[in-house]
């Protein structure tokens, strides 16, 4: 059984995730994260020696149909051709702050 997560672990993770936590929140999350990791131990008990990776399937196992679908087994792909995305104006339309010329998102300095 892994060591429980401590409030100090949580504070470190919070810093990595750029989250501001109060002291009592760090304690509460330490307990919750420990409980969630206990679930990992349960799942690790399941023996799955020969199953194909889920990411190689297209979910074509369908209760009603019998699509064998080896073609479905590949991740969906498309031709490597440029297609239009959203315009810069649309992308910046909800910006909390933007540069004077309206082309860039503006944020506080790093340091």
């Amino acid at each position, binding site marked *: 059984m892994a060591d429980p997560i401590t409030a100090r672990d949580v504070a470190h993770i919070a810093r990595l*995730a750029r989250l501001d936590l109060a002291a009592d929140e760090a304690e509460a999350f330490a307990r919750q994260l420990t409980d969630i990791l206990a679930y990992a131990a349960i799942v690790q008990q399941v023996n799955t020696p020969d199953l194909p990776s889920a990411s190689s399937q297209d979910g074509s196992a369908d209760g009603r149909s019998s699509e064998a679908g080896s073609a479905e087994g590949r991740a969906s792909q498309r031709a490597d051709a440029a297609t239009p995305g959203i315009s810069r104006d649309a992308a910046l339309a909800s910006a*909390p702050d933007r540069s004077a010329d309206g082309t860039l998102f503006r944020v506080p300095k790093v340091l």
Partner: protein
Amino acid sequence: MNARTPSAVAVRDAIRRGELTAERAVGEALDAIAARNPALNAFVSVAGERALARARRLDRNGDTSGALHGVPVAIKDTICVRDMPATAGSRILAGYMPPYDATVITRLEAAGAVVIGKTNCDEFAMGSSTEHSAFGPARNPHDPSRTPGGSSGGSAVAVAADMTPLALGSDTGGSVRQPAALCGIVGARPTYGRVSRYGLIAFASSLDQVGPFGRTVADTALMQDAIEGPDEHDATCRATPPSSCSSTLDAGCKGLRIGVPRHLTTDGVDADVRDAFEAALDRLARSGATIDTVELPHSQYSIPVYYLVATAEASSNLARFDGVRYGHRTSDADTLEAMYARTRREGF
């Protein structure tokens, strides 16, 4: 409860027969929302003028062939509608207006539906009561002192309280099925991969599915048929078109084999809930279905798997909410790192 208003099928058919206009159908939905929403808090935003303008265009256009022609629909606020607010039930997306429509919206509108407004939900779909919304709880129309369930509570209320005949929600761990049950309406969680998630603000990418709410099975099947199918914008959406739900309804229950995992109906189930469940099975059997008992031996792992996958994916998916490109940004930060952390402190 008020007198029942027409189903989606009835609204569409009345418009096709010339007995109703889309504008009138939308106007009646807006009146119902104005009358009932203040007490129920199902909608967090209503786009009356936009909806009426669209309804008038539909009436002028004259083509009533859309499967959902003229039908007002409510949309969970985790689903992006161009130029309507999308809050995902959170303060952190205050002011955000998506610059695009979710695929499910494009398809509903192609079928002639009219988006009326965005509905209340637990924040980022994380919850099962709609009490974790930044905009206050939604209330169950059968008893406003009770929860409508969640996370798609607002959408369930919109339909159960006859504000719109149809609504869209999303279901990650029950968030369409459970509020449908708690509000006494039909709700379906499509098999993963059946409906595009493009434009659904993500909670758990491996689990999320958009799903329909309706007062009848026929209405719900109609909405499901309209939204499902392959989408090049969503690589997890199955590439082969699904079979139509509506086309199977006439066959009824004859020949249907239903597996019941009875081992899951014992612990923690209230007696009256179990009675209602058994009564439903009995009705299905008398309608021609075969009821078999099945075992789901891996069900004991479903909660552990859910709490590992859903939480990990939620952490990744919500990392984008940082005050840089959209939504709330703290005014109390002079460094980038502080801006991220304080924006989230204030917004989540």
